[in-house]
């Protein structure tokens, strides 16, 4: 049963990644695109966790943790750039 559920959840997250990509392309403003990118980061973490469940190994959690940190830092850095026009003043 778990295989079928995993397949369903994989496709759900795939669809949401596509929806995020659509928002990333049409915009209309820069903060919208940053928001779409941030959501894509979080969805990719979910995808990695699902992959590690379907493979049955716990090796992928470090990767997920690293992507979570990179996503947060990059969102904050881009927002800082939008606010000030500079990352380090």
């Amino acid at each position, binding site marked *: *049963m*778990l295989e079928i*559920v*995993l397949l*369903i*959840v994989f496709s*759900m*997250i795939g*669809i*949401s*990644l596509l*929806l*995020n990509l*659509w*928002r990333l392309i049409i915009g209309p*403003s*820069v*903060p*919208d695109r*940053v*928001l*779409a990118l*941030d*959501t894509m980061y*979080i*969805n990719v*973490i*979910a995808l990695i*966790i*699902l992959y*590690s*469940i379907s493979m*049955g*190994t*716990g090796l992928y*959690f*470090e990767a*997920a*943790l690293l992507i*979570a*940190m990179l996503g*947060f830092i990059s*969102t*904050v850095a881009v*927002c*800082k750039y*939008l*606010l000030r026009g500079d990352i380090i003043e």
Partner: protein
Amino acid sequence: MISEWVVSILLLFGGAFILIGSMGLIKLPDFFMRLHGPTKATTLGMASILIAAMVFFANSKTGLSVKEILITIFLLITAPISGYMLIKSAIHHKLKAKEGTKGLDNIEDD
């Protein structure tokens, strides 16, 4: 057997929430409303998928692993902060709110 059911239900719940978050990102009319989807629904979806992974690995050969809690805590702490940064930059760029938004005069210039 019971754990398989729990894992399946948690995974479906989480996937549905992530999908709803992204639907909100597409469907809602202005930026300030779109922000609500990813900061809330997606965070809860991630939390339930991570808990599902924890239950799954506790019942498999790998044994109990608690690293998922770290990712959950990290996401719960950082989601409001990135939301705050995003809404601040949106206010700075003077994005148009949807017509009929109340209290627009509460925003001060910075």
